[in-house]
């Protein structure tokens, strides 16, 4: 029982960690607080389902297309919608409010499109759902695959951020956007990349959600909320913190769902959020 909770919690936490990683890239590097983040996750999830049910394309194949598609969408969105806001804000600190408002509008726009195209019902697919024994516990294969995808993508990105020149540049922008241009970094380009990369992660996270969870067109807010809380728990812009906090939230949520009530998982998220705000608002792994 406890072991089941632990394994399922880690599987869920893997998805959350990946989602939080994308959000922290968008907020940390591009300085865009993206309230429509969960909607991007859902778009990818619905696309995966549509490709599977409509065209018979297996989710694992679709997954390969989802990440670059997410990157392209994020890139275009930054260029068309976010960049003008960045330019308008200048150094006035107005970008935060503007990006919150603009993405709040975007949230309803995407949600509206999803409702029209896919309807309001809960959706799920049955794909590779036979049990696999892990440490004596039976876990659906699709959950393990989803976790594997998150681990590979998330882990790969963390390594890239820490050990490549490109990753160093991104982290430099995240830490001191003001002085990055002084050492010849094109902040605008990095912001666009950060935003696009974040969208790609949202898409991959959404695709992995679609493989093993039930979801609906109006559930984006909950994904965004959880990702935001994880980002704050881990410390804004802190990659490692987001991963650890994501796994932790997955564990807590699975524990609450099995031991108390599945209807209280968002309450558990908020309880953690409240605790972090009162105790360590700079994040569990933040400095200071």
């Amino acid at each position, binding site marked *: 029982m406890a072991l089941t909770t632990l394994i399922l919690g880690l599987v869920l936490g893997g998805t959350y960690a990946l989602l939080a990683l994308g959000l922290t890239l968008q907020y940390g590097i591009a300085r865009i607080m993206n309230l429509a983040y969960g909607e991007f996750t859902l778009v990818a999830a619905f696309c995966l389902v549509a490709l599977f049910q409509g065209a018979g394309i297996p989710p694992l194949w679709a997954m390969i297309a989802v990440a670059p598609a997410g990157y392209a969408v994020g890139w275009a969105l930054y260029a068309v919608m976010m960049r003008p806001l960045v330019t308008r804000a200048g150094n006035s600190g107005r970008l935060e409010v503007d990006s919150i408002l*603009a993405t709040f*509008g975007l949230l*309803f726009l995407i949600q*509206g499109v999803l409702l*029209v195209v896919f309807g309001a019902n809960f959706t799920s697919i049955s794909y590779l759902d036979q049990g696999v024994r892990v440490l004596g516990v039976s876990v659906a294969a699709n959950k393990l695959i989803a976790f594997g995808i998150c681990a590979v993508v998330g882990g790969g990105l963390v390594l890239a951020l820490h050990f490549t020149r490109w990753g160093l540049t991104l982290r430099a922008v995240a830490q001191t956007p003001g002085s990055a241009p002084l050492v010849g970094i094109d902040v605008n380009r990095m912001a666009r990349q950060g935003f696009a990369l974040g969208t790609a992660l949202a898409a991959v996270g959404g695709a992995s959600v679609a493989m093993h969870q039930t979801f609906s067109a109006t559930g984006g807010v909950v994904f965004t909320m959880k990702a935001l809380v994880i980002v704050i728990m881990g410390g804004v812009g802190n990659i490692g913190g987001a991963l650890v906090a994501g796994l932790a939230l997955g564990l807590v949520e699975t524990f609450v769902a099995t031991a108390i009530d599945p209807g209280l998982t*968002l309450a558990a998220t908020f309880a953690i959020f409240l605790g972090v705000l009162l105790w360590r*608002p700079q994040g569990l792994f933040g400095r200071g």
Partner: protein
Amino acid sequence: MLKVVPFLALIALIVLAAVPFAVSDYGLGLLIGAVTYVTLASAWALFSGHTRYISLATVAFYGTGAYTVAVLNEVLPYWAVLAVAALIGGAMALVVGLATLRLAGVYFVIFTFGLAELVRQLITWYEVNVTGTLGRYIFLDITARGIYWQMLGLAAVTIALTAYIQRSRLGLALKVIGDDEVVAAHSGIHLARTKLVAFAASAVILTLAGAIASPRWVYVEPAIVFNPTVSFLTVIMALLGGANRLWGPALGAVPLFLIFEFLSAHFPDTYSIFLGLLFIGVVFALPDGVLAGLDKLKAKRTQPKERTA
């Protein structure tokens, strides 16, 4: 000029109070909706307009007000139900405010972003697991006209309160906080208390609005009263008119409410797409609202040569 406005507002209020005698039931329904959104948008702007702390939790308070009436309408007299609703709304605002308003604005936004969903899930869980009844009826002996007059009164109080606050120390403090919190603190302004007072006042009004509007529903359940579209509309209305102006939110609320009614009647499936586009359009084209846009235009016309001065 300044003396004329309150006088005109009073006449308008009297006229508006008499309108129900001259319109159909459908017309009265529209009036109630419009006045409700005038109240919501003005109350939202009372806190968020000057401070630029964007609250996305309007419906968390509004829905709580409605649900309070649904739970208590057969237990307590009506005025006591309203008082309890106001207290609950104020208490919720204090919890949210104490947790987030000491910190940077983004924490507040995030907390309010998920708040309506949290309250909805908690009430659903409580009703299913503890009381065993999801969905309640409101049987109150209040006519549509009665609701209209109450809501009109609340709207008038909200705008009057906003006008009063704008002339008070609190209003000046909120303005300073919206411009620069560091300067505010070093000038002697108690940041957390100032924000908390304004946010609580705004929340109490939002909760009361939900309580007053609730008899219109008759049947109430969490999924109905915690409709996120309410939060969304409130923000866009206040922004469109100008969130830091006294009459801005009201000015934005009336046309947008009518558009919303039209869209939801004729395009029930796609109206949220239209609204999303409209919202993004407002953020891009009129970031400070119509009134500020008009002022700018006027300033350009009247003194085109003073640029160099």
